């Protein structure tokens, strides 16, 4: 009896583990296959700080850097500046225009995303 119960328990755990495995795999595959590799955003050199939804494009001294707009604390989307600082609306973390943290709770700098200008200079291509 005990053996049977133990067997069933193990089998049940196995089935659960199997489904978790399948679920994890299918989700990761789905993510991999649907993830957009590159995004093109219209680029304007005139704007020092440009908020393009998921991205913050900072153009200073003729150099353009693309940051992820997501605050490194909890991922809230940063959509505004106060003076020369990028300010997160959720918990008030602040970054300078180089993406460095000035004020917590965030402690990691904004993620710099690989980007390049299109040949005509009208667009910026974000992503590796």
């Amino acid at each position, binding site marked *: 009896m005990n053996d049977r119960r133990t067997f069933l328990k193990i089998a049940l755990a196995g089935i659960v583990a199997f489904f978790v495995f399948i679920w994890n795999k299918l989700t990761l595959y789905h*993510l991999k296959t649907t993830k957009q590799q590159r995004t093109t955003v219209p680029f304007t050199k005139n704007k020092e700080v440009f908020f393009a939804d998921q991205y913050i494009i900072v153009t200073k001294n003729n150099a353009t850097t693309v940051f992820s707009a997501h605050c490194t604390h909890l991922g809230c989307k940063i959509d505004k500046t106060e003076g020369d600082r990028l300010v997160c*609306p959720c918990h008030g973390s602040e970054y300078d225009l180089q993406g460095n943290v000035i004020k917590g709770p965030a402690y990691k700098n904004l993620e710099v995303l690989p980007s390049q200008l299109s040949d005509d200079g009208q667009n910026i291509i974000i992503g590796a």
Partner: protein
Amino acid sequence: MSKKKNKTTFGTLSLAMFWLVVLSGVALAIPFDVKDPYLSISNMMVVNPWASFIRNYHYWSSQFFLIFSLIHLYEHYHYKGKIGLKKGLSFRLSLAVLIIFLAMITGFLLKGDADSQQARQILQTLTERLPLIGQSLAFSLLGAPESYQLIYVHHIATFTVFIAIAMVEHGRKFWPPALDFVASSAGLLIFSYFLSAPLHDNLNPAVKGPWYFVGFQEILHWLKHPEWSLFMFLAVLILVYLANSAKGKTMFLSKRSLLIFVGLYSVLTIVGLFFRGQNWKWTTPWSQEYKSEVLHNFRTPAVNFSPEFELNEALASPVIQGRKESCLACHTGTHGFTDSHRAEAVGCISCHSGNPFATAKEQSHRNMILIPGNLANAQQSCGTTQCHPQITERVPTGLMATLSGMISVNRFVFNEQDTPDERAHVTQLGNSAADEHLQNLCVRCHLGNPKTEPGPVNEFSRGGGCLTCHLNYSPEAEKELAENKGEIMRAHPEVSLKVTNNHCFGCHSRSGRISTNYEGWHETTLTKKEMPDSAHYRLIEGERVFVKKQEDVHHKLGLECIDCHHSYELMGDGNHYAHQENQQDVQCSDCHIDGEPRTIAAEDLDNESAIIAALRFGNIAGKKLLLTEKHKRALINTYVENDSVYFITKNSGKKMTMRAPAAVCSRNEAHSSLSCSSCHTSWAPTCIGCHNAYDANERGYNMIENREQKGTWVEYIGQYEAKPPTLGIRKSKDKTEVVPVIPGMIMTIDMKSYTGNENDPEIFHRLYAPTSPHTTSAKGRSCVSCHNNPVALGYGEGELNYVIANGKGTWEFSSQYAADPHDGLPADAWIDFLKTRTEKVATRSDLFPFDEQQQQRILTVGACLTCHDENSEVMQQSLNHFEELLKTRTQQCILPEWK
């Protein structure tokens, strides 16, 4: 157990609420669009009150379900010594607590508004940081970033089913007692009618999670590693599990810990709800922004089943930035906007605030900003995140908002501070004699002075934030306003780049009077009755009489104020300057170029200049624009092409070619240290001999509080004149320059009249002020108008004669005005004849009159000019080689001798 079966408990109420949540949820699924949740909900609120009602019902039933479930849990812990559930059930019930919160938060996310979007980001980031399965779990829970499909599925199926199973399993009931069901549904009807479920307007910068998570948001705010907060969840779930299934001390400790946790969490929730504003900054109910940042979250108008507009109008009104606003359902046909401010593009609430989802006038207009653009509300109107936040941030630091120079000089003159160059702000005036003087007589003209009545800008206008310069009424809008008897107005005034001289006129026709100077009008001391009936006279503000003088050459050519003055000068560049000439950027030489022009390519313009240029002139790609020397700002209405510099007037589009300065100006010999305006100013207004006293019985006005008061400083004006200005020396780090000056403050102040202290002395000052008169003439001053002119030199009006006797030349001066008893100098003088004056001489610490040596040098040339015509060959040569020429002079040429 059997006795308890039909007894009302929070458990049975929760069950009732659960079924009501499910029922209302099914009904809500009909109007709800998972592809565009925010739009569909705003649509319900505006055009479908029944759907709005059922949404409220769904909201309130779920909130009460959560509350009752938690109280139910508490009751069990409180009244039962021991719960003693089996481990399996206990585990599933503990998990159900988490699932209930997940069902609630997914419901919150399905609003799709600004609050929801940020909450979604937080949930995603936290889940992703779970080890091993974080990525998969986050995606499985929330799905692709733009899609709500998975959230919806979990909300209506996964979590709901789980909760249902857990409930039935532990309560062994499907249905709540009939009475509980009826009472709950009836109670909810009342709640749902009177209090609408929240929906963020996506404009207010303050974002918050749902009320049950703001305490958690508060905790997250402190954590550098927010993922650690997940341990808190785990701990709570374990405690619930232990309280349910453990025995003895463990159970007791678990219960007690939960109680303490709930107590602390409640405090954090209150902090999060009521004391956190924009960017999670600490705020209090008495802060100015409390209403817009905190109370904003609690606006919950009642459902209005008979909206005050026709359904067709509401259906026809445009979708604005992803939401339906109810405003345009009543305010149909509103017109008059510039393209960027069209109601179809920015809606009404972007500027006017109010509640875009309410459908009755009173509710919609609650907390509305009738006159947006005043500095007190500019952050919430013109400066909202998607519009002009950078500008509204820097305008309050600019001179037109701070009045720094006026305040600082006034305090200096009242001997309240040692230099006139301190930085000051009009919002920080105190009760000193100088500050009271300012509040009674001077500080009405600042951008923060609010506009309180609708209507066009005219010569009586003072302040009004952004509207001061940008408000324009069409004749139609003006007529409609004048004739309005309470009906809805259709012709809206325009807020645009069309800043005309009239916008500047109200304030700038006073004090330095550059607006009137520019147009060629000089203020007299005549009264309205004394004004001659002639086109040479003009009445301003119904009482000030002006007489015609020479207009500025730029005015004659059709240039307006904004043709020279760019946005960073007028709206400030973010720096808090002490005086207007520090903020002021454009100089004559920026446009009238000698040599190679400083340019900037259109592609390299800063965003603000690029937008303004594009709005004014269309495509400017490829153009090279002039750049100012001082602050390196672009002059967007200029361009350089084929070695010519072109200038276009901003409002009228007139194109002109810039002239280079005359050869006489660009020589680097004599006169190289003269500013352009020291020669090219045709006249400047002057005022001498003013007296100030406080009259405790006179009716006065407080210009900061905008109210009448008893007791005021009174200014007894002296004499007004228009004449070519005196010249002085301005020394800065980089250069020493001769500049025009006027007798800014030759005045007395009766201090004892204010303080009541008989020992207080009468203050006397003889200060000249730098001026930029805006009376430019194309032709410069003649040589004698400076070298032989006592006013130009600073002696004041009088006879200045070169007397040659016995082969010796001496300059003599007799003043027109009597000596002032305070210092023995003539009433209008800056300096004593051929003497150096020091100490307090000017309203700037870097401004000085000519010293003795400088006067001698000027008058030496003046002596030559008494015989030689200024256009004579010898005088022209003297401009380049004066010292050498002197050596070759004949015996007839007698130079002055100095004592």
